[in-house]
């Protein structure tokens, strides 16, 4: 059995298996990534997933008696529940169903035991809680999460062999939901994350705004002036879905027809043109390009020093993005569209899965002390050691709170930045000590907890930081 990488996406989920030089992709029965939609039949607890769920989601939603969960990734850390006759479903349960479907697909394609272990790609800034839910969901599906990797970094790993002569690379990964940007430095066979930034709702907000435009077009065509809030929720959901489909279709066509059988009591048919859509999509595209530029700046680099920009993800195929990147002299000749944008992230994760323990921390975090110096908590180059460590602190002023400030220290050309700050209640100067415990978790987060010795552990403050930067060692034989 080979090594698996899984890209658990907002819209689609895919798995790639790398076994030596052989690469297998696992998605739906049509050879595309598996839609992340899950439908629950309320009367029987039956679960419908994959392409058939995607194809029937509108029909079954209209029919009633079904719970349609369009994108579980967006609500992994929510407290939502979906209730059917025999049970209540949490986000973890729904995510597990998506992963089970994927594992079953792999079984059907000859992986006898299904997927048992994989490296999962995650968006920048996915919260610690969401990571835990995803890990638990994978366990429910019989898949052990060996590690997480940021989606945009995984995408680069896929292209590592082609870009080994580059020094600095930016990856612009704009999927259906999130937009992630990684800026990476290549040193021999090692890649270092210099900066990672994301916009969690970039794709969703764009679709919502586009649906408002389509609503206006429908109302103009009808000569009506209904506010969108007055339209039934189910019709509005349909409108968003159709608007998103039209947005994708505009990448190939100048004009796309949108048809809805039921919209505010009647059928609706309008044409969406690129020119009209550009008015809505333009600001999103500009913000996305600005995020790319600001992430490069955060890495302590100028765009001129970026050798290649890899553009990947479903939304990156938007015609307007390509137009604006092509017209922007800063990016001319630097960007390249990914060859297999729907699979590259999972492919990169699978490559990393081949080399266990291949990563190290690429930054130093320090506790800021009262004199402005830092006490190192974790150090650049440190392997992922999840052993908790402790230290004691004392106040230097007569206060009732200890201010704990944790900074990312300046390194690799990047400036010092604050990553966590919080206060811990104490009894005061000379009367108390603060016990601090910190650890790198297997979910690739840095967790710190602190409490006053006098007030006790029940007054513990806990904070977690997930946007850690790592360095990945890619052996010659593995970097395919």
């Amino acid at each position, binding site marked *: 059995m080979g090594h698996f990488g899984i890209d658990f996406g907002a819209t689609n989920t895919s798995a790639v298996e790398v076994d030596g030089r052989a690469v297998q992709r696992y998605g739906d029965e049509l050879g595309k990534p598996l839609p992340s939609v899950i439908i629950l039949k309320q009367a029987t607890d039956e679960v419908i997933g994959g392409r058939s769920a995607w194809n029937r989601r509108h029909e079954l939603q209209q029919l009633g008696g079904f719970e349609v969960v369009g994108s579980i990734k967006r609500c992994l850390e929510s407290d939502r529940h979906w209730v059917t006759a025999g049970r209540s479903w949490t986000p973890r349960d729904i995510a597990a169903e998506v992963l089970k479907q994927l594992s079953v697909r792999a079984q059907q394609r000859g992986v006898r035991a299904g997927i048992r272990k994989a490296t999962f790609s995650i968006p920048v800034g996915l919260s610690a809680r969401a990571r835990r839910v995803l890990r638990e969901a994978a366990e429910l599906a019989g898949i052990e999460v060996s590690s997480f990797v940021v989606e945009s970094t995984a995408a680069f790993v896929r292209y590592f062999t082609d870009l080994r002569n580059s020094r600095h690379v930016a990856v612009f990964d704009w999927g259906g939901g999130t937009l992630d940007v990684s800026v990476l430095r290549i040193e021999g066979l090692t890649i270092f994350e210099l900066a990672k930034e994301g916009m969690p709702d970039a794709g969703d907000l764009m679709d919502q705004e586009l649906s408002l435009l389509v609503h206006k077009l429908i109302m103009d065509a009808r000569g009506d002036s209904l506010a969108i809030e007055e339209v039934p929720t189910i019709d509005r959901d349909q409108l968003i879905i159709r608007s998103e489909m039209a947005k994708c279709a505009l990448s190939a066509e100048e004009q796309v027809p949108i048809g809805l059988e039921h919209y505010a009591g009647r059928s609706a048919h309008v044409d969406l043109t690129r020119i009209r859509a550009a008015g809505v999509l333009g600001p999103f595209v500009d913000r996305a390009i600005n995020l790319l530029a600001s992430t490069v700046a955060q890495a302590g680099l100028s765009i001129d020093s970026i050798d290649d920009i890899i553009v990947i993800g479903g939304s990156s195929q938007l015609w307007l993005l390509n137009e604006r990147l092509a017209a922007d002299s800063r990016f001319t000749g630097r960007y390249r569209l990914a060859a297999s944008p729907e699979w590259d992230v999972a492919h990169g994760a699978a490559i990393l899965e081949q080399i266990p323990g291949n990563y190290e921390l690429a930054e130093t975090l320090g*506790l*800021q*002390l*009262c*004199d*402005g110096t830092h*006490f190192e908590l974790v150090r650049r180059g440190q392997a992922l050691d999840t052993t908790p460590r402790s*230290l*004691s*602190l*004392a*106040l*230097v*002023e*007569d*206060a009732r709170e*200890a*201010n*704990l*400030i944790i900074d990312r220290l300046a390194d690799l050309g990047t400036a010092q930045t604050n990553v966590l*700050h919080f206060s811990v209640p104490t009894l005061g*100067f*000379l009367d108390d*000590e*603060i016990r601090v415990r910190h650890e790198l978790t297997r979910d690739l987060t840095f967790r710190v907890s602190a409490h006053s010795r006098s007030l006790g552990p029940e007054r513990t403050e806990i904070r977690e930081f997930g946007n850690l930067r790592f360095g990945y060692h890619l052996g010659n034989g593995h970097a395919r």
Partner: protein
Amino acid sequence: MRANVGRRSNVVVVSEERYWDTPSFRSNVRGRSALLKWLQKKAPGSRLTDAVYNYLSPRQRADVAWETRCEVCGARPEGPVRKGQTVEIEFRCPRGTCSALHHTARTLLVNLRLLNRALRRAGTDPSSLAQRVLGRGFSDSGRRPSGPLVPLTIRLTKSQYLALRHHNDAELAAIFYAALLSWMKDHG
């Protein structure tokens, strides 16, 4: 508009039972209230002025002094203001009723020849020279100026005044002498 407030760390890492008696802890204690508590623990029963002088750094002595309340409005009108890498004590009366006294004069004895050489090198007046010399930091070397001595009146900033207020004129002369020699050495 830029924010002009920020969170400041108020902790040190400690590893000993009597951490409060270690030089690294002592040198970081700040604020009048904390310093008085610390002195009470370190030297219980001793006279405050003696304890302040014996155990605290010039900055900490200033800390103890500046938090004395204003007799007019009851506020603490002076406080530390960070300016780049340095902290200066500035007037910041909340009522706007009390006026600021930016500099305080002190008179000290200084070697005439050394003063003239320094003035030529600095190309400035005695008061500005004193600001430059003391602005680099100072300590009491115990070495008194000798030779032809002349009285020199210098203007001290709030920080300098508060840090030096416990020193008598002879000690102040020694501090200035050491600071002036150090400045001359660094300026050729």
